[in-house]
């Protein structure tokens, strides 16, 4: 697959504190020497605990932040140090969906205005903008009439649909979602996850999804990168990551997710302690403090992200002892699909739902609920 975005040895350090002479007294290493490629058409997820640098990395990808070191290459061009002005034409091609649909929409603008703004900036005429807004609303499962309303008139899920429509407005090819579903209820979350999947397929998007929820990632991503304290510690395809994690941190992260199955209540390895401060430059492995497999070497010799597969595929791990960490499938990913009775009733429920939807569609064929979206004609 063709590479759309490539990061090489990218870092973002922030000076913190001031000494007597006003010089920074320390460096916060939010992102530390990460190299990563995003392939065209894939969904890459970045997961980790708060403070691991995943949002900073996302903003570096979109060049909303300037890297302290390393390079950002988008579609063959090195944009690492482009000015905001020079970036502007590129903005239509790369977009961000925010986490909080409550604070990311201006409460004083109607949804129509919110969606028109990026189009206006990109020089669309008034009549084309109008048509495009209606088209966008249909794409994300809202009605054209919603354009007249204000954000407070919508539920969280609907607002997130507006946020997604805004990101789609100018027909981007690359979208970064910064925890796009973590503020939503589980039923709404499922709706939005499906919507993002549909849109990706319809529009041929490349997605980077930032998440702290591993179960969401499993449903959305082709590949997953696990971050810890500003570094990627494991990177591989989604299935492999969940079934054969090779970094002790990844395993702990998977096992920590409470599973909707009262029969497994497993004896789990709970990760003790919390992420240490990114202010302290570690001598060795940054995970050493909390690692169950820690050895002397880990404290002195920082592991680098390395390929652990020979031949086909890719499974990169930053751990000296990944062979020991690779202990088969975690309990959380191996349990069953629920009881027979539950499965039977779910099947009945879904059949009935499908039957009802068919009837509804026959009666109102002219009312598009989840409509297609054509790419904008520039």
């Amino acid at each position, binding site marked *: 697959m063709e590479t759309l975005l490539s990061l090489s040895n990218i870092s973002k350090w922030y000076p913190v504190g001031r000494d007597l002479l006003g010089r920074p007294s320390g460096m916060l290493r939010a992102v530390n020497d990460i190299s990563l490629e995003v392939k065209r058409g894939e969904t890459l997820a970045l997961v980790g605990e708060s403070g691991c640098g995943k949002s900073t990395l996302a903003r570096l990808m979109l060049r909303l932040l300037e890297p302290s070191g390393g390079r950002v290459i988008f579609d063959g061009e090195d944009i690492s140090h482009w000015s905001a002005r020079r970036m502007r034409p590129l903005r239509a091609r790369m977009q961000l969906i925010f986490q909080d649909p409550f604070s990311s929409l201006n409460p004083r603008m109607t949804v129509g205005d919110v969606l028109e703004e990026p189009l206006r900036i990109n020089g669309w005429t008034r009549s084309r903008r109008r048509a495009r807004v209606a088209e966008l609303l249909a794409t994300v499962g809202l009605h054209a009439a919603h354009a007249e309303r204000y954000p407070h008139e919508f539920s969280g*899920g609907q607002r997130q649909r507006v946020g997604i429509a805004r990101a789609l407005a100018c027909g981007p090819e690359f979208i970064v979602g910064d925890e796009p579903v973590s503020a939503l209820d589980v039923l709404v979350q499922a709706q939005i996850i499906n919507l993002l999947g549909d849109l990706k397929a319809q529009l041929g998007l490349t997605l980077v999804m930032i998440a702290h929820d*591993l179960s969401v990632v499993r449903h959305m991503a082709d590949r997953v990168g696990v971050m810890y304290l500003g570094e990627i510690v494991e990177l591989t395809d989604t299935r492999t990551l969940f079934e054969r994690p090779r970094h002790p941190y990844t395993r702990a992260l998977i096992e920590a997710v409470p599973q909707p199955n009262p029969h497994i209540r497993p004896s789990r390895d*709970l990760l003790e302690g919390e992420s240490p401060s990114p202010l302290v430059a570690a001598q060795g492995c940054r995970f050493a403090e909390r690692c169950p497999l820690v050895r002397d070497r880990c404290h002195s010799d920082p592991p680098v992200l390395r390929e652990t597969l020979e031949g086909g595929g890719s499974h990169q791990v930053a751990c000296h002892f990944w062979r020991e960490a690779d202990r088969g499938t975690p309990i959380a990913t191996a349990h069953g699909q629920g009881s027979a009775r539950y499965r039977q009733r779910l099947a009945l429920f879904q059949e009935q739902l499908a039957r009802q*939807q068919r009837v509804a569609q026959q009666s109102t064929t002219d009312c598009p609920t989840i409509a297609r979206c054509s790419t904008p004609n520039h």
Partner: protein
Amino acid sequence: MSRLATIPVSETGAKASPDQHCVLRVDDLSLGFRADTEVLSILDGVSFELNAGRTLCLVGESGCGKSVTSLSIMGLLADNAEILGGSIRLDGRELLGLERRSLERLRGDAMAMVFQEPMTSLNPAFTIGDQMIEAIRCHRDLNADKARQHAVEMLIRARIPAAEERLNEYPHQLSGGMRQRVMIAMALANDPQLLIADEPTTALDVTIQAQILELIRRLQCDTGTAVLMITHDLGVVAETGDDVAVMYAGRIIEKASVVELFDDPQHPYTIGLLSSIPRLDGNLERLPVIPGAVPTPNEMPSGCRFSTRCPFADERCLEQVPPLGEVAGSETHAVACWKAPLEHQLAYQEVGA
């Protein structure tokens, strides 16, 4: 990392038998919010009971009334809330209509609450020690030194490292997980009969969430406190609960032991809720989705409140409220649905066709 003891389900299921002491009994609680001229119905006939040492999970989406239920138990409702009927008894004592001072004596003593946001539920202007010691001395006749000692003990039990020093720190100096530990230590300081935990881990990272849930479970084992766990996460229910009540639009629509709920879900909403959880295991198909959204309080259907979204709904569902009735063969399982169990619908349809 520590290996934690397994809690076999059979054991938790039988946990209540030695001590059937009922700590909390909510009976037919109805509540509304005054808006302009009308009163919008928020809770409608909510009933449940909770025994000592047990954990009851109230689960549902935002706006289903689970937090309002907990606030009405604590007597912390907003001024525009109006109790329309029912009763709430803590250890046999009626809480509704209790005057403010008596409620204040109970809060933090016989009943305590841990909130979702550890960032905002501690006062930033006072040290952890000030706040804990105040909470202890409000309800116990202890001098400052003794109270301080007790606070340190509680912090140690909540597994907060360097407990003594923490007492002199301000909330902003602690991480989110540590703050939630402090909240739990403070809530349990006076050995309450009832602990309400309102989404205690929603704002936390998943690894910290696992630690906090484990802490609550362990402290509950030590103290025999009854825990009312408010959550939207069915994973948390499966992991922490003994019993569970599913709420939808201000009503309890299904009540069961945790195992019953997951193995034998009756209500179509419960089934939809269970199916829409993104799972870590193999099933990677498209997530099943219940279309539409929860009706707003001013457009509630007069019958079953889920009828606007339920594919099985017929005229009776739209018009008549289904009672919360026992599921055949179980004393602990009840469902409010005219159509449950769904496989019977199939039989009727076949007969009809």
